[in-house]
């Protein structure tokens, strides 16, 4: 084994501001896809549990596709697949839609479990107090579901951040994409990816810390 490689960290450190800026893009796109994913996932779960037949089918297909194919495959669908219909999305939208599709599918399954964990006497009690179906869901059922699925949800957010690195392959310059672009300019591939790995690690720890803080604040009663 011959060790002839010398590490050059300086060019990477000089580009550190670019990498940090790109990591903000990563956070932004992951959080946005998560927010839309929560709304869509809740709709999918409700439709699957007690929606009309055709919509329940759409929901089932969505959820099973999202869970049984690779996230990268889903990104390819939004880039090449929609391209064949003549819809050419920008790399940002490809990543956003891909992540959201995946998040919604996984979250829907979590929400479905959460919905089943809330006893249906809760719904009947709310209805008999004179609340409409919509009111009893938004005020009684869904808040309880959120409490049950809080931890799976924070995990999903972490997954979203990790998954957003696939953007590298579709050519969107969030942290991984930016790292790749810079790395292949300078051929300091190992150094760049090592720094990117460190930034991802810090981001994930940061998210988990914040979510613990929120959980402590929200669920302390």
């Amino acid at each position, binding site marked *: 084994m011959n060790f002839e490689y010398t590490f050059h960290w300086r060019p990477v450190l000089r580009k550190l501001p670019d990498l940090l800026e790109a990591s903000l893009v990563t956070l932004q796109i992951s959080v946005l896809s998560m927010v839309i994913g929560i709304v869509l996932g809740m709709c999918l779960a409700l439709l699957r549990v007690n929606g009309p037949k055709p919509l329940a089918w759409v929901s089932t297909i969505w959820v099973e596709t999202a869970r049984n194919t*690779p996230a990268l495959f889903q990104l390819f669908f939004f880039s090449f697949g929609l391209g064949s219909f003549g819809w050419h999305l920008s790399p940002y939208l490809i990543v956003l839609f891909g992540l959201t599709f995946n998040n919604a599918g996984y979250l829907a399954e979590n929400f479905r479990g959460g919905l089943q964990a809330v006893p249906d006497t809760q719904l009947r009690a709310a209805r008999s107090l004179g609340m409409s179906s919509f009111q009893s869901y938004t005020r009684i059922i869904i808040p309880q579901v959120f409490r049950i699925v809080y931890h799976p949800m924070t995990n999903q957010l*972490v997954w979203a951040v990790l998954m957003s690195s696939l953007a590298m*392959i579709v050519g969107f310059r969030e942290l991984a994409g930016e*790292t790749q672009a810079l790395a292949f300019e300078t051929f300091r*591939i190992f150094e760049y*990816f090592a720094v990117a790995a460190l930034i*991802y*690690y810090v981001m994930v720890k940061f998210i988990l810390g914040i979510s613990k803080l929120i959980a402590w604040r929200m669920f302390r009663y």
Partner: protein
Amino acid sequence: MSEPISFFSGFGPNDLWYLAQAAWQTLIISVLAISTGTVLGIFFGWILSESKIAGAITLGLVLDAFRSIPLIIQLVLFYNLFTVVGIAISPFWAGVTILAVYTSALVANVARGGIEAVGSPMRRAGRSLGLSYFQTMQHVVWPIGLRAVFPSWVGVALGVLKDSALVSVLGHPELLKVARDLITRTQQPLLVLAVAGAFYFALSFPISRYAAHLERKWQS
């Protein structure tokens, strides 16, 4: 009269065979990575559950890093590390190795959960019946803990099956890489993606259904 040369040609039956072979590659990579990763992961999980503080500081921290860094970054990083150190390794084995380590990090967490799910009264009962430490592990902790965490393990295995798609960044012709190449050649993205998706679905869906079935059977 010469015919115009075309670089593109339609999707034919040969391409279906080509995709099937690529799906076989995906399956081999996943099976290798999941089996080695599981063995390693159970070992790591056992260490984590037995040595609370020392284990958590050293091994726990390293495994946690593998779980907190995107797999695609790990693949590029370690593949380049192999070249930096001067080890010639094929993309296939590099992919399998990195996936196996990644799997072991995920399984370690699951295995530790399983071992800790078997309460210490149960283990003490085993010991006071005259079983040795390893006998208790084998006949008490293993069967009970296994049932408790089997669904999570299946989740990890299915995740790794899908994550094996990322080995395509190293250039190994697994399912998604081949699909992408075929899209470039045939210009029929929807068809190729549908076939590739169907292969993934066929690999993943039966396992997840079977696991759900087992889980229900064990609960009753």
